[in-house]
Every structure is written in structure tokens, then in C-alpha cells.
């Protein structure tokens, strides 16, 4: 490697690089802990050694292959599939969510754990012969004309991880399809995402079509170029700030009967953090 033209500055810059930029992420990092030793996670995971704790740990570590194998084995050994879902797989996922929320876990941890959990649930459901209970159905889609769906995929993952039944319509979804699926699935909440100024205008069209069909389900709208003030020009909507807020917003609807108007007024309280756009 040839010498960098920047090398001549080496002696000058490194002693005081903190006057230029501070790597706060490194600066505030706490001591390393095994995920299962985190005090909050300790409370969540099955404490007793055995199949359920072991299964929860495979989700915590996002190990889908191992998770699948352990689920199969447990079912063969006569474990109750509902019990495995609720007291092993979901517990592992709750631990993941807790670690993500406090900043110890990252997106890939969450995605891989979600993949493992969903796969384990599917095997249990096979055994059951029907779908397991979810808290409620929530419908997700990226609006017509918008090919971007990574944000929507995050929402799906957070919903599943929190016990909601995510009905994912995909991306570039026509308004008519949204209405049809809403009629069929009767979701308690929908999320519409858009990345561009000219696709966020779909929100108002969707609201109009839903109202014509007599559907008043709250719609959380968000994504790249989306602004709260624009979203709120349409009734029935609220502005969604972060993907991980969605399950909390769904809880507010399901558990506390909150309306879209309540959500607009109480967003920060509902998601449990100060949100600049909503304060």
C-alpha cells in the first residue's frame, strides 16, 4: 500500500480527534453481558432448565435450524404445541424485544429471532391443524407506486414478534386491493408506507376508498418522505414515526379502545417515549 496523502497529518490529529467527532456509541457502551443474563431477560425467559427454556434460547440467539429441530423433538415427545408457542417461542421473542428496546440487540438479531420464532410457530400450527391465536389481525402494505418495502417488512416482524397476526399485502398495492383485503380480514389497524412525496398522496385516496366502503379502521402512515402534517390532512390516519411503535399502537387500540384521534393526541404517551414530531 502506498503512503496516504493524509499520513502527514497523523501526528497532528489523533490526540484531539474528540474535538472533531465523538463516537458516542462506543463511549457509552456498557459492559458485555450474555443476552440471557440481562436482568430484564432473566425475568422473561422460563427459569427452569428444560425444553422450554432451551427453545426460548434458540429464539433469543436467532438460530432457526436449531429451533426447528427442538420444536420437532419436543412435539414428538408429546409437548403441547400451544404451550410451546406461548411459553417458549414467544418468551424468547419477548426477550429479544426487550433487548432491542434497550439498545442491546440490533435489527439482525430481531429479524433472525423473528424468522426462528415464526418457523417454530408454523411447525406447532401444523401439529395443531390450525392457526394459533393472535392478539388481533393487523394489515400492512406499501402503497401503489412505491416499490420500497424494507420499512414495511420491519413492521411485519415487530407485529409477529408481539403476538399480532400480520397480514402483509406486500408493496405497490393498489387501493382497490387494500379495500378488498380490509373487508375480508377485518384488521384492527392498517399500516401504509410510502417513500416518496408523490406516493404519500395515496394515503388520502385510500382513506376515501375505505370510507366509501364503510371501513373506519385506523391507518398508520409513515415512511421516507412522509410528514405528519400531510398525513393528518386525511381523517382516520395518524403518522407513524418508528416501525417498533406499531405493536404498542395496536395494543392501545385493542386493549384500551383508542381511536385514531386518541392516537394523534397521545402518541408519545402510547409509545412510551418523547417523540419530537408528536410533541
Amino acid at each position, binding site marked *: 500500500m502506498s503512503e496516504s496523502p493524509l499520513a502527514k497529518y497523523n501526528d497532528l490529529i489523533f490526540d484531539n480527534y*474528540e*474535538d472533531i467527532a465523538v463516537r458516542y456509541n462506543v463511549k457509552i457502551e456498557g459492559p458485555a453481558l450474555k443476552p440471557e443474563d440481562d436482568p430484564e431477560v432473566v425475568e422473561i425467559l422460563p427459569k427452569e432448565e428444560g425444553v422450554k427454556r432451551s427453545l426460548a434460547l434458540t429464539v433469543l440467539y436467532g438460530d432457526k435450524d436449531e429451533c426447528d429441530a427442538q420444536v420437532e423433538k419436543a412435539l414428538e415427545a408429546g409437548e403441547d404445541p400451544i404451550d410451546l408457542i406461548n411459553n417458549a417461542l414467544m418468551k424468547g421473542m419477548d426477550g429479544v424485544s426487550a433487548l432491542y428496546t434497550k439498545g442491546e440487540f440490533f435489527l439482525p438479531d430481531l429479524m433472525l429471532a423473528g424468522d426462528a420464532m415464526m418457523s417454530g410457530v408454523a411447525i406447532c400450527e401444523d401439529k395443531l391443524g390450525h392457526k394459533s391465536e393472535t392478539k388481533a389481525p393487523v394489515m400492512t402494505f406499501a402503497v401503489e407506486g412505491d416499490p420500497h418495502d424494507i420499512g414495511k417488512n420491519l413492521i411485519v416482524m415487530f407485529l409477529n414478534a408481539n403476538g399480532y397476526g400480520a397480514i402483509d399485502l406486500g408493496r405497490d398495492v393498489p387501493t382497490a386491493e387494500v379495500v378488498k383485503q380490509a373487508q375480508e380480514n377485518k384488521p384492527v389497524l392498517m399500516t401504509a408506507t410510502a417513500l416518496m412525496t408523490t406516493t404519500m398522496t395515496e394515503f388520502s385516496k385510500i382513506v376515501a376508498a375505505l370510507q366509501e366502503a364503510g371501513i373506519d379502521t385506523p391507518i398508520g402512515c409513515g415512511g421516507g418522505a412522509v410528514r405528519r402534517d400531510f398525513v393528518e390532512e386525511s381523517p382516520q390516519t395518524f403518522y407513524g414515526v418508528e416501525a417498533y411503535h406499531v405493536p404498542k399502537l395496536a395494543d392501545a387500540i385493542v386493549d384500551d379502545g383508542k381511536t385514531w384521534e386518541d392516537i394523534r393526541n397521545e402518541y408519545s404517551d402510547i409509545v412510551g417515549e418523547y417523540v419530537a414530531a408528536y410533541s
Partner: protein
Amino acid sequence: MVLKRFTKMENASADEMVFGQTKHPVKMGLDQVMGGGDVVPNIKVAPAEGSEESIDGLEATSKNIAFAACERAAAIGLPAMQIETEHVQQQSISREASERCTAVTFEELEKLHDKFGAKVSLMSTVADMREEENGLRGSEFDIAMDESFEACAQNGASMLCIETIGGKVVSDYGISRGDVRAILYGIGVLGSIDMEYMWTKIVDIAKRNNVVPGGDTDCAQANTAMFLAGGLTSKNVSHTIAAVARAIAGARSLVAIECGAQGPTKDCGYENPIVKSIASVPICAEGKNATCAHSDLMGNLAAAVCDVWSNESVYNREEMGGPTPGVWLQSLGCECALMNTATQIGTNKQLRDTYALADKYRDPQGVILSYDNAYEIGKAITAEGEDIYLRSRAAALKAIELINDAVDQNRILLTRFERDTLDSTLKTYEQLPDDKDKFIKTCIKRYGRKVKEHDPSQYEL
């Protein structure tokens, strides 16, 4: 009170002036030093429309702005930042509003400091609500402002600032008519006298409360000239007259320091390089990262010798890139990082000169505010430092000379309008009396009649 007027330069040469460095650094806030080596970003966001309806609303908008700014500072690794709260009338008029808005803003800064170790401070700028026709001294507004300063100082302000409006009614008249005598009287004489009144009080409040008395700006006068002068294609005020008004503003805004203010002075004081050349106090400035608020012709030049770098003002709303406090703080923070890197690796004087030359000949205003010429104007001011009138006129004459030199050396061409107004300004100023009292007497006679709001008694004249 007898002021210690500046009669010599704190900088031995123009080359001693550079961004981030002063001979009189100022400690403030939490671990922050201004003018002590590093340039610090200063973010300022206008309260949202409607928030002024209630103190709750003002407090909420203050928290919202501070939260978004602090969040971004942490996200991008800014070592230091300052928030400026520039009061709207509804904040300054109410002691409670001043208290609560200041406290909630400082609370967010404190969190940023405590969690991440960032260096932070809060600049509190009280609105000058006074109107000359209703009394600059002792009026209800004047008293409310004193209260507001106290309230800020006791609730988290690191420093106190103001944009005083003394002389504005006369200078406005002069700026819109190209009457340069009115400009000299309004800015150089009336502005300076009013600043002495206000700053004596502010320095006292700051000292009693152990916060820093910051500085002023000739926003009300020289910025009116600059904004009306506008871009190259605007046809309102002459850019050469705007340049002359700015030079006079240098003599005026210095008064805050003479009263005991320590800086940083206010961002929109484009005359700050002149003040810094004389007093070597930290200055705040704004330019290419303040286009949200206004357009000027000195976007880079304004950074050349700044110590704090500001966006001036912006609506509090969402951009694709996030809330505006974060968006504009990031632009500012990047520019500060560039300057601070230059300081560390020794390219700071080259960067300073590159900033200056990028705009020095874009417009006559750039000619006189380039730090080398600002220094010459500073010398002209200190040579007559004891007399607010003579030093203001000296600043103006030096500015005219510097512009004419640049023209003679073929570095800048003037339009006919700029040329004609500069020539007539020179002629007018050369014919003025050398005696302050005589000048004032003529002006009172002339503008007492033409400007109905002007009340000389408000200046003890």
C-alpha cells in the same frame, strides 16, 4: 457610568484573527469554552405557529426543538453545541414564559451532557420590544425585558443577548431613501447611545446571576439595509450604502463589549469581524448554513473568523431528513467539524483565506467584511475610539476607501447605482462637522421633523 472605550486593537495584526480563536475565550454552560480553539454550532428554531397562544404552548415548542437538536447531536457525534432561544414577544413579556422556556431547554441540554458528555450551552436572547415613540427607557416593555433577562439567567441560560433597536426609526428612514446622514446618526450615534443604556443593565443582571453577558447585533439597522439591498439583481437599496452602514455598525456593536459584554456576540451581526478585530472576543456568525432564514452574499466569508456558527432561524417542522432542528444543526455541525479539523491539522489559515476570498469580491459588502479589511476598519474606529460619532464616521470613510481601492485595483466592478451612491456618500461624510454635538444638533433638527417617531429625549439628547 463611564465606559472604557477601545482606543487600541487587541489583535496586533489581521493575521491573528482566525475562526475559533480569541484572546479572551469565554467559559459557559456545561464544559463549554467559546473562542478557545474550537468553533461551536449554534442552532436556533422559531417557535411553531400557534405556540405563542399559551405558556404551555411555548414551553412545549421549546422542549420539542431542544429535544430534536440534542438527539441529532448525539446521532452524528457532535462534541459540542449551543442552542439559542431567540424570544418572541410572548416569551419576553412574561416572566413565567421566560422561566419555563429557558428551564425546559436547558434540561434537554443537560441530559445530552450527562448521558454523552457533550459540551453544551444555552444562549438566551430577549426580544427588544421597545418602541421609540412609547419610550425606550423605563417603559413597560423596558421593565419587562429586565425581568425576562433575570428569569433566563436564573433558569439555565448560559449567556444573555439582545438585538437592540435604538436608532432604528431614523436609520430605516435613511436606508429607504439613501440618506446617509440619517444612517450615520441612527446607527452610529443613536444606536450606540441606546446600547450603552441597555448593556449597562444587562451586564449587571448577568454578573449578579453568574452568567455570561453575551453581545448584540445591528440586526435592526444594518441588516435592514443588507436585506433590502438583497441579491445582485435586486433594485432596492444600494449595496455600497449597505456596506457603509455595516462599517458604522461595527463601531456601534462594540459598545456592548465596552459595557462589559464578553461575547459571543449575536450571529446576525455581520459587523462582528470588525468587533472581533478590535476586542478579540468570540463572535457568532451565520452564512451559507443560514439560507433557511435569509439570502446574503457572504455565505463563506462570514465563517472566516467566527467562533460560533449559526443557522439564524428556521420553521420548526419536518423535512425528509428529519425535524428541522436536527437538519440544520447537522449542516452547522459539519461546517464546525471542517473548521476544527483545519485547526488541528494546521490548515486553518488557508481555510480562513479560502472562505474570505470566495466572497470578498462578490459584492462591496464582502470587500469591507473580509477580515483583513475589517481589521483596517477596526483600526479606524479605535483611532477615534472615545467619540461614538467620530469613530462611526471614521469606519464609514475607511469602508469607502477600501471599496474604492478594490475598484481601482480592478478587483471588483460596481454598478452605476453603487458607484453614484458611494461617491455621494463620501462627499456627504467629508462635509460633516468634526464635532459630535454639532452633528447631533443638526440631525435632531432634520430628523425630528422628517421621522415622526424619533424622540431625542429617549437618548438623553
